[in-house]
């Protein structure tokens, strides 16, 4: 089984550096980047229609243009639960607002809330528990 992860974030620098760090931690992970929630959701919808498999991990930013992290979570929660059976969603945001943290943890599909920047050590721990 291939190791796959999605990064949903509009920050180019973050995309670049996070992907790099991820490949350092585990070079086998197939990483896919989406610019915002809408791009990612369209992909997920197509995936569910074609019965394709979801990645083991989704790293989701909250503050994005067009469709933000919240809207993405809402749309995704409306899909068949079984699709996400083997998927862990991690919120990765620069927001340290308690409100955001509590709100994120209230979603069933959300595994954890990570505050940017995510250290390499934390990422290693995470990868180890999900693959």
């Amino acid at each position: 089984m291939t190791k796959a992860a999605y990064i949903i974030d509009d920050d180019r620098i973050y995309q670049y550096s996070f992907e790099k760090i991820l490949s350092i931690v585990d070079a086998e992970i197939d990483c896919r980047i989406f610019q915002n929630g809408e791009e990612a959701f369209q992909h997920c919808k197509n995936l569910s229609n074609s019965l394709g498999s979801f990645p083991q991990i989704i790293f989701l930013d909250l503050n994005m243009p067009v469709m933000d992290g919240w809207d993405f979570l809402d749309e995704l929660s409306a899909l068949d639960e079984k699709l996400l059976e083997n998927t862990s969603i991690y919120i990765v945001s620069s927001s340290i607002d308690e409100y955001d943290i509590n709100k994120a943890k209230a979603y069933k599909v959300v595994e954890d809330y990570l505050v940017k920047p995510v250290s390499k050590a934390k990422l290693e721990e995470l990868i180890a528990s999900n693959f």
Partner: protein
Amino acid sequence: MAIANSKLYSEAIIGLVGNLVDLGIWQYNMERDHLQWDEVMFRIYDVDPKDFKHTFRDWHDLVHPEDVEEASSAFQDSVKSNGEFIYTFRILDSQKNIRWIKANALISEVNPQGERIITGANQDISSFTRIKQEQESLMETLKDSQRTARIGSWQYFPETNVSVMDEITKDIYGLKPQEHIPASEGITFYKEGWSRETILKAFGDLLQKQTPYDLELPMINAKGEEIWVRTIGKAKTNAKGEVVKTSGVFQDITEHKRRESELIESQRKFKAAFDHSAIGMALMALNGAWLKPNTALIELLGFSEVELLQLDFQSLTVAEDLAEEIGLLEQCLEGKIDSYRLDKRFIKKDGSKLWVLLNVSMVRSAEDEALYLIAQIEDINDRKIHERELVEANRKLKQLTDRLINQNRSLNDFAHIASHNLRAPVANLMLLNELYGSTEDTASKDEIFEMVSRSTEDLQKTLDQLVDALIIKNKRGMDMQQLTLKQLVDGVNQKLQQVILSTNTEIDYDLQVDSLFANPVYMESILINLIGNSIKYKHPQRQAEILVKAWENEKGLHLSVSDNGLGIDLKRHGRKMFGLNKTFHKNSNANGVGLFMVKSQVEAMNGSISVESEPNVGSTFTIVFRRSKKTWGLDD
């Protein structure tokens, strides 16, 4: 045959009772329940013969409800016993007036058909009854009033030394009706000393000189209670001038005396309260003239009593407070109210004004005639001053609170912006730093370093924006001037000319207002941002059309920029519309600074901004400057 027979009977009866005046005759056939009345009967009972059905029931229904049961059974009894029927009862005439009827004859016979016929007579005795009743009730009333007023009488016959007291007199002495005391003992009930000496002398003078007396004296009655009596005595003499009888009236006036002394006491108390009261009090004439001011009032107003008596309350009332009081006083005089109460200002002798709480009550005679006014005047000057200070302090506090709420909101916004917009580049820098440490090859390191530079620039830019926003926020109300709208709009047009032409945008102006009071730099920046946004987010399928409109209504001066562009889903984005670095379009130029700055600038000029938008239809941003001379001063 039956008719002939009944006529026969009637004639017989008329002969029988012919000596009676206005006598109604009736006949009753028991077997057939048929009641026959003559003309007089109908007159006595005030019944129209056409309405009469000739049954026992007809009579029964005419009798007074309280008497009908007894009258009926008296009638039945005499029918059964074949005895005489004499009975007096009441009936109600057609006007529901009571009439007294005396039924006083009964003859029972059997007619040729073998049916039992009863014959009788009725007489209206209302007039006799009424007179008798009136007399009885008059006597009763007299006795009642004597009892109530406790007026008794007595007689004394010197020759035989016999004295007689009526029941009420005995009752006043505290004696039982059957008890009897001689005149000499009666004297001992008068209180020892002045009272007894007075009555002894008066009674002696009555017997010897026939001098009548009328005295009010204290007594101790048989029950040991102290009472007051009014005793009146007069003498009756014979032809020789000798006293044969003395008699008099004896009245218990204890209650009257008690009330009298209570009244004196309450008057005394009132006078003391009036004179020594801490609050000002005065008797005033109905026209407002001071009649009797107390010491406290004299001190309060600073006028002497003599001076006050020359004045009325009107001349000492502050002009603005006078109308209200005169209105109340008029209602009092018209009897609509008994008293009134108001806060008002008096003018003291030294010309200063004094806040008082005034309470005025109308005093009326027993005949309800307005006599004079009692005014109570309480000094509330300090309270009023404190009240005003409190209101002022409250107002200031409210202002301060409002400002704090605003600042708090700004701080919240700022904290939010700092959290989101500063943390992001900082997080990137940290991440890049870690990456730099984990990367070996030079090419990658260079790439990472390039990223660090870009991140640092981002950070710098964000900080600059925040600083700009803070500067705007802290310069509220600065550099405001009267701007000509046309000039302002032309300037903006000039600056955007390049982009307007290149995008083939059409801009229309509807300026119903000539000028506004604002900061010129901010206004230009706001318009460039709004018009710029409209062009930036034009709908790809159509030419951009923009309308800039200015108008004025009761809410203030409005300035709006409308477009037919992409529009924004306000349900999703409305809440964060004006936040820093918020972007709602996939446009690569979107940096999210514009609207945040626009809002900061509008608010710095005491305006407000709102947005209406519909996806794929267009957006309208409206700025409102509320009407206030301080912020913008058109045509004022």
